[in-house]
């Protein structure tokens, strides 16, 4: 079957088996290998990406279900050569070791900060509690997200809806918010 969706602001389409998982479509067909696969059972969260502005576990979403929807992956966090504060926070606070859970963690963190710019430690822990890291013991992931909250990107246009709108709003001077 044919699917078409917007991925990181770009329209994409593909011929797939109806049963194909979104994680495999993104990785194998689009070559966006920053999204990882780790468990098949929606437990580990290495496959977290955004669908219509909400984090989802893409091992439990069919590619067909994403037809007509907006997908955003880790590859879209960096803008105009500048790391997202969440990415910078993970670097600064040593929020990653092997790096395998990192993309999913960062996508959840970005979503959290868009909706709650000053989360408490408990709110951060709750937000990432559906994702597993075996290296860090989570302490530095929490600190990385706190760092990002303390260093928001200086970008007047940035409002919570901006990221969700980014892909479908090329008229909003795409250079600022889109990746082309």
């Amino acid at each position, binding site marked *: 079957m044919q699917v078409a969706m917007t991925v990181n602001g770009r329209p994409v389409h593909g011929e797939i088996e109806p049963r194909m998982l979104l994680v495999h479509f993104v990785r194998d067909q689009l*070559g966006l290998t920053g999204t990882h696969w*780790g468990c*098949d059972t929606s437990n580990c969260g290495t496959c977290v990406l955004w669908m219509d502005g909400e984090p989802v576990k893409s091992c439990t979403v069919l590619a067909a279900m994403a037809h007509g929807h907006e997908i955003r992956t880790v590859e879209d966090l960096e803008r105009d050569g500048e790391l997202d504060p969440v990415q910078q926070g993970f670097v600064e606070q040593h929020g990653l070791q*092997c790096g395998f859970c990192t993309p999913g963690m960062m996508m959840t963190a970005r979503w959290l900060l868009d909706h709650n710019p000053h989360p408490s430690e408990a709110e951060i822990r709750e937000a*990432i509690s559906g994702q597993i890291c075996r290296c860090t013991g989570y302490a530095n992931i929490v600190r990385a997200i706190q760092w990002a909250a303390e260093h928001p990107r200086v970008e007047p246009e940035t409002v919570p809806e901006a990221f969700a709108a980014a892909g479908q709003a090329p008229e909003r001077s795409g250079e600022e918010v889109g990746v082309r």
Partner: protein
Amino acid sequence: MTTVEEAPAVPMGFGRMTRKEDARFVRGRGNYVDDIVLPGMLHGAVLRASLPHARITRIDTSAAEAHPKVRAVITGSMLEDLNLAWMPSLSHDVVPVLATDKVRFQGQEVAFVVADDRYAARDALELIEVDYEPLPPVIDARQAMAPGASVIRDDIDGKTDNHIFDWEAGDRASTDAAFAAAEVVVAQDMVYPRVHPAPMETCGAVADMDKVSGKLTMWSTTQAPHAHRTLYALVAGLPEHKIRVVSPDIGGGFGNKVGIYPGYVLAIVGSIVTGKPVKWMEDRSENLMSTSFARDYHMHGEIAATADGRITALRVKVLADHGAFNNTAQPTKFPAGFFHIFTGSYDLQAAHCEVSGVYTNKAPGGVAYACSFRVTEAVYLVERMVDCLADELGMDPAELRMRNLLRPEQFPYTCKTGWVYDSGDYPRALRLALDIAGYEELRREQAERRQRGELMGIGLSFFTETVGAGPRKHMDILGLGMADGAEVRVHPTGKAVVRLSVQTQGQGHETTFAQIVAEQLGISPQDIDVVHGDTDNTPFGLGTYGSRSTPVSGAAVAVAAQRVRDKARIVASAMLEVAPEDLEWEKGRWFVRGDPSVGATIGEIAMAAHGSLELPEGVEGHLDAECVYDPPNLTYPFGAYICVVDVDPGTGQVKVRRFVAVDDCGPRINPMIVEGQVHGGLADGVGMALMEVMAFDTEGNHLGGSFMDYLVPTSLECPMFELGETVTPSPHHPLGLKGVGESATVGSPPAVVNAVLDAIGVRHADMPFTPAQVWRSMQGRPLRTDLAVE
């Protein structure tokens, strides 16, 4: 004299700096095995045994072969014809690549399908028919040697039972004498259950056999690429120079990725058969059910002491469940790994241990999950026994430990089973941990809460690790000595490259090994490229596990860099026309003694070494050096941990409130990375103590085959850790460094367990302390956690 102001973000050597490798990881640009795509690549999938013990009577692959997307179906009998059905294990046993006669654990490899895509390969597995004749399984290790137990390994000539080995260490007679004379003796049975490293990335490989050149390129999730290459040469008869093993980014290892799995060999066979590259990635269930587990030690401990709390002797008997094949990674002379360091951190008169290994119908392995070759089990045993003794004596466990710890003046210390501890100041570390925790205040709070019916527990552990395997005269793995090579080369423009035999799985080698060279040569870590994980481009060595990278490979790099510095001195002497002895070193520069303004930087020396400068007799050009480092001894990091828990008296739910960890691993190359590794190990301890277990039912069904059943800690179970450090350099490492990667995994489980038992006032019950186990323990009838039996 000129000095260069360094930006604090990048130290010229040791110190905190952010990691060089992070630039790609935070962009989603890591390159893991499953990210590798080659032209024409096919996909493999493994059919696995549904039963734990059964004779294979028929395999019909015809329907699978007829699948339009299937390129090959491989069975054990086909491999037998190629003499590839069995491969050597890491412990002088054999492991089947694909089952031929019997399946011996649930999840064992039975057939391999190669197809156009991963979905088709999985589909075709369903089309393979296997007829089994079920056999009684041996699941409970305690029944493995019982009369009438099924003989699992009837493939071994003359084998009539499930016995693997008996091994002992220490002095039996003096230990028995110490026990006979003891005023107090406490005995305790305990199980360290089977657990799994469960790295976030499962195991996998891409094999590409080039039929024209005859060269095999093997991308795989391996912590030990050079050892794997040699073993492939021995197993498959491929010439070693025609094998290239590449270990790209690895999504966590923890020992899980040390051994060679059948899937790797099958990917190679698949590529040979089809003439195409073949990718094989296992799924999570395959990872949990078939790959290298950890622990599974059934221990009986006895501790002897005087009435006033002076520990005199330890005696231990262990029953070790090694699964269906003895595939434990261990330095050859030690079938029980390094378990005989079980005397821990204490000054004893005598000690003796016996370990017996048995086969069961479970996956093989035994040493994985950051255990330092079974030091984890040893530390758990002794730290639990000390708490049991404290309970018997009515003494505070901190006071009992302080009274018995080795004293600084006893180092180097030869323990009762023969290990030579290189250095330590144990009381200082324990005192610091007690201070950070506010121990006295915690005990007061605990007493107050108990008055109110609240269950608060404080658990201590003190560990001595033994890492950096190891001296060639003492240890090897399958005949391969455990020395590691390194090469340091300074380019003409003063930038450098260092090539390593070891392989990071998240430890940050691209940063820390650059820092080691920077410390020696005064070249910024940012200007030093670290090459690793590719057997065609790095020197030989046994890889990264057992916390050996810094003690062994780190020493090799340090020595190689020092040799570069020595050579730079000779080149500088030619440049400056002075004798080498008249030159002095400051970081990054040789200068004339007494006239610091006359000198040459390492960059200037590098250019001269590559130029037309006339060099002294016998000095070759260029600026590089190599080292193969044979460590004279292991290194012995240590630490003191204190865990504080609250237990819900109604549900048995444990909440870890605080976790204090004082680690001494000698000087720290990059404190940020050391702290990160300690954090991860502390979380491991929370997981093993409270939730992780691979249990089986009596039929041999694996009860932990997914992350829905095998529970690992999340952000909600882990506290913000409170770390402290003391620094006691190793006297034999060139930079005084000790390994640290597994310290916290070794030290943390007994701290958590001791805290839980302290909270509920029970002397002993077995991990993991799920709410059910806590509640049952409070009722005086703890569960057996490794088997689903009442």
